[in-house]
């Protein structure tokens, strides 16, 4: 039963990551992305997917998709029908699944995904058909592929597993919430494994939406810069295979890192603006660290939400200053959105993978720039590539509606 579920008597379990797949505009897969993030490369280019000539900005971090999907159990017809967002998700999932060495079995495997707009590009295409009075042609697949459950079912069919599907749509915190939910499933002993991640493809509605709010940078996305003027959008996906430490050890699996804390809270200040003091952000960081059993001075690096908008970064800086207290001067922080843009529902998942890379390979992802750091930042903003052994890192994700989430990860030694 989904409820009440059978719970392993030895819970709570330690939760480890045995596979991680990532797709961003920096490239396909762990290696290309790790090299890009480590060097602080940026991946913005003119948008080619839809018309942006009338928008305030015309650039985003668009992914170059490979000509074909990797081989899976999807039929050629299913594979051909997948939309852009679904392809991003399948690419990331294939890397994670393969790396983990998972084999589909009879036991249910929970799937937890975060997204904000799923196959919105298909929804837009359907709307254009429906609003065209001259045309009676309607393509039903555009409706089915607009919805995230289609991408979830494709994922299950691609790898031949079944299990409870949870699709979390908490705006830009969705990816972190999805990993947090999967973490809780495994930690509580309700599942020994879970597949989790986030994905979002660029689409016109969302691009125009952020532009209408004048939230998009018309210059360069510069999180925590004193003269920052907005965010840049990107697209991508990241998927993690989570399992209990016992499960990973029994399989002899390679362990990439450990998830040790998750916190979630709601900022009720405004639908799109954070409380200036970052109260909910502080609450999630505190909760995640409490669960992890660590204090802020033990966190070696924070992957900030850091969108580059004046309001977000000010509130997050206030929250980080307050949360870290006396340790804030030693706290190293950066936002990888400076490299790949804001991936919305994928952001939290991709940034979790960036944290795994940093833990595993011992470096801090810089956000390059020569501008003046906002004096509100009492922490150290990582602006140059640097090697650093890390034990614990924290990643923040905040979204419209006041959705806030933090995850704490530990290096696997």
């Amino acid at each position, binding site marked *: 039963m989904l409820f*009440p*579920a059978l*719970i392993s008597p030895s819970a709570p379990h330690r939760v480890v990551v045995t596979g991680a797949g990532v797709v961003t505009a920096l490239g396909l897969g762990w290696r290309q992305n790790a090299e890009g993030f480590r060097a602080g490369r940026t991946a913005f280019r003119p948008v080619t997917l839809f018309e942006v000539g009338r928008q305030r900005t015309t650039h985003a971090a668009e992914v170059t998709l490979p000509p074909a999907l990797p081989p899976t159990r999807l039929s050629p017809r299913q594979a051909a029908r997948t939309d852009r967002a679904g392809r991003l998700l399948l690419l990331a999932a294939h890397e994670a699944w393969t790396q983990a060495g998972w084999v589909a079995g009879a036991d249910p495997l929970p799937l937890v995904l975060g997204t904000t707009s799923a196959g919105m590009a298909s929804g837009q295409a359907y709307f254009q058909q429906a609003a065209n009075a001259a045309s009676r042609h309607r393509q*039903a697949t555009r409706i089915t592929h607009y919805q995230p459950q289609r991408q979830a079912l494709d994922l299950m069919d691609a790898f031949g597993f079944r299990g409870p599907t949870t699709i979390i*749509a908490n705006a830009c915190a969705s990816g972190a919430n999805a990993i947090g939910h999967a973490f809780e499933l495994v930690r509580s002993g309700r599942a020994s494994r879970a597949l989790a991640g986030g994905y979002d493809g660029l689409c016109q509605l969302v691009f125009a*939406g952020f532009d209408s709010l004048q939230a998009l940078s018309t210059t360069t996305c510069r999180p925590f810069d004193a003269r920052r003027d907005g965010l840049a959008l990107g697209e991508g996906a990241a998927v993690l295979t989570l399992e209990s430490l016992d499960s990973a050890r029994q399989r002899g699996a390679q362990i990439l890192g450990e998830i040790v804390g998750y916190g979630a809270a*709601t900022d009720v200040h405004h639908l799109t603006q954070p409380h200036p003091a970052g*109260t909910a952000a502080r609450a999630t960081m505190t909760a995640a660290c409490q669960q992890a059993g660590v204090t802020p001075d033990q966190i070696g690096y924070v992957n900030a939400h850091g969108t580059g908008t004046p309001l977000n970064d000010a509130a997050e800086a206030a929250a980080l200053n307050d949360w870290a207290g006396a340790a804030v001067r030693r706290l190293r922080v950066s936002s990888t959105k400076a490299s790949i843009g804001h991936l919305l529902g994928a952001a939290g998942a991709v940034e979790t993978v960036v944290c795994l890379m940093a833990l595993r390979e011992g470096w801090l992802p810089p956000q390059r720039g020569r501008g003046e750091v906002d004096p509100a930042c009492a922490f150290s903003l990582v602006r140059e590539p640097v090697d650093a052994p890390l034990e614990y890192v924290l990643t923040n994700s905040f979204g419209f509606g006041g959705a806030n989430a933090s995850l704490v990860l530990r290096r696997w030694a």
Partner: protein
Amino acid sequence: MSRIFVQGVGAVSPAGWGSESLTAALVAGHPLPTSELPRPTDGPRLQGRRVPAANPRPAWLAHPRLRRSSPISQFVVGAALEALGDRPSGDPARLGILCGVMGGSVIYSRRFFEEVRRDPPTASPLLFPETVFNAPASHLGAILGRTGRNDTLVGDQTGFLHALALGATWLTDGVVDSCLVVGSEEADWLTAEATGLFHRQIPTAEGAGALLLSREFSPVELLGVTEPEAFTAGQSRWVAARRVAEQLGLGRVPTPLWEVGWEHPEDHGAAVTAMVPIVGDGLAAGGAWACVAAVHALQQARVNRAAVRVLGANLQALGALFGRTSA
């Protein structure tokens, strides 16, 4: 394992504002009236079951958060406030909110995209934030001043039952002290046309349903939510429906069933209330209404056990079981 109890229910439906009107319509068993959903372009005439205007207008609709909100947000708040009743507010961080949706804020999404297609620079910045799936749950949290867990789950008609299971899990694990679980949807010509591609004869419906869960004893208990049975390449809708019926034990213990789905498998022997012919396809709200009706029947001692089965449109089948409790 903790037992989970239902403390309150709420509904906004084509039958009116309030769970009593929904139950009355279901007991009467007559299809609720439909109305035409206006569309700006030529095309087939589309029928839907809309929520009638609230009369009198509730005072909470004047809350600043709802000033520009879409109908779905108002339905969520209406159903949730009824479920909460006048229960004392506790720690703001200890009330969880879970909202299940399928189409979400489709009216504002359509309006915003129409504006983008006409002239992107003039598209309204007031509309876009309301298009986000979690806007209704965010408004609810803000109106209640609740700062704890607040998740929006997207799926098909089974989304509410999935959220119900997650809420019960949060309570079992002590993540929250109580949890509002809401399923909601709003009707628009675009949704009606899209769903009509699959089942032309079923009108789209709108509204919300809510259950308030906690571990405190009450006369109605959530006994379980089944394992989901996905519609995949290897499992048809009928097989999925039958497996949910087996999990609910419908063949072993005659249990009144509130059923949501485009079709109605005859695989059980007890009384069945088919929701869709009466209220329409409320998408994610449909599962919530079925649970509200089942809990009402238990509260009124009309039945001792009540089952809900939802056959979603394109993801899975799922069921829930409720029972009357003894102290």
